[in-house]
């Protein structure tokens, strides 16, 4: 491995790790405190909850799994639900993959495959913002550094939730839950750079909640597909108009 590649790896990893110590770290706390409490309620062991966090690294999927365990669903039904809950990762890794692999890539492909283990809503949105200003060789390591630190923080938070977070006062509890939407409102609507992004925001904000009224299971997937496709078509049409 050439020396530059090693230092790019370290630079990217450290930068990602450092970034995980900011607001995203807090976000993880909020989400996984809730997951920890839910796991203890469902009668799962702490080790199971912690391993699910480390291995799956997908809060919605973990919640689906626990939920299905509580209702004693069959293995097949549970797998199918978790499978569908993870479809959202596909467009995320399809968009991040080429940016990670731009790094010249004599055999560097494995890094992208490892790095995407930590692609989740938060890290995806942050990476989309950061990657354009980052050397390509540092992108996969950035995701690994970010993911490893977030996972460690999440396991600690899961423990806090598991071993008794029921005693927080209400204002703190709802504040923690609201961390996630507040963060995303800013990340998504804070600096809208392109027309396609603006159209996607508007269409997604309408399609997601509207479809939720129709089907809770399918709203996330269909909201993205329908909202995103309409947005794509709209910005295409818009671009085609004479200025």
């Amino acid at each position, binding site marked *: 491995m050439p020396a530059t590649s090693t230092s790019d790896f370290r630079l990217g990893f450290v930068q990602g790790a450092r970034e995980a110590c900011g607001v995203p770290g807090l976000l993880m706390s909020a989400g996984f405190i809730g997951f920890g409490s839910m796991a203890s309620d469902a009668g799962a062991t702490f080790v199971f909850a912690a391993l699910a966090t480390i291995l799956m690294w997908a809060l919605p*999927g973990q919640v689906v*799994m626990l939920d299905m365990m509580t209702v004693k669903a069959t293995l097949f039904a549970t797998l199918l639900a978790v499978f569908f809950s993870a479809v959202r990762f596909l467009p995320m890794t399809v968009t991040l993959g080429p940016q990670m692999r731009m790094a010249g890539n004599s055999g560097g492909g494995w890094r992208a495959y490892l790095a995407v*283990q930590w692609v989740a809503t938060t890290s995806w949105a942050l990476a989309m913002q950061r990657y354009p200003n980052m050397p390509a060789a540092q992108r996969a390591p950035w995701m690994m550094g970010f993911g490893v630190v977030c996972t460690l923080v999440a396991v600690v938070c899961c423990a806090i939730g598991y071993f008794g977070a029921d005693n927080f006062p209400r204002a703190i509890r709802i504040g923690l*839950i*609201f961390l996630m939407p507040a963060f995303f409102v800013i990340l998504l609507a804070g600096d809208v750079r392109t027309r396609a992004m603006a159209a996607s925001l508007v269409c997604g904000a309408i399609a997601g909640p509207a479809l*939720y009224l129709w089907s809770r299971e399918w709203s996330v997937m269909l909201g993205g*597909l329908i*909202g995103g496709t309409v947005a794509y078509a709209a910005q295409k049409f818009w671009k085609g108009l004479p200025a």
Partner: protein
Amino acid sequence: MSDLWLLLALCTGVTYFWRGLGVLLSGRINVDSELFRWAECVAYAMITGIIARMVVMPTGALATCPLWVRVTASAVALLVYRLTGKNLSVGVAAGVITLAAFG
């Protein structure tokens, strides 16, 4: 007991499947291609949809706050972010405090 670990292993597998598939497919997609633009639109719309739903129609503890508080807190987060020269932490904190105070 062993059933639980099998369940976890399989859930881990089906979750990673989509992540790995994205990388596999992305090798064949040009970053500047129309398909890539479309995928980006879908991903943005998907996340925006989830967040919009969390603000407008939350479940659990957030549902006990009035709608206007959730919407106002979101607006405050965005506004403070812009006014502080795009400081993410301060913006998020302002939104959270607004919600906790009035919710």
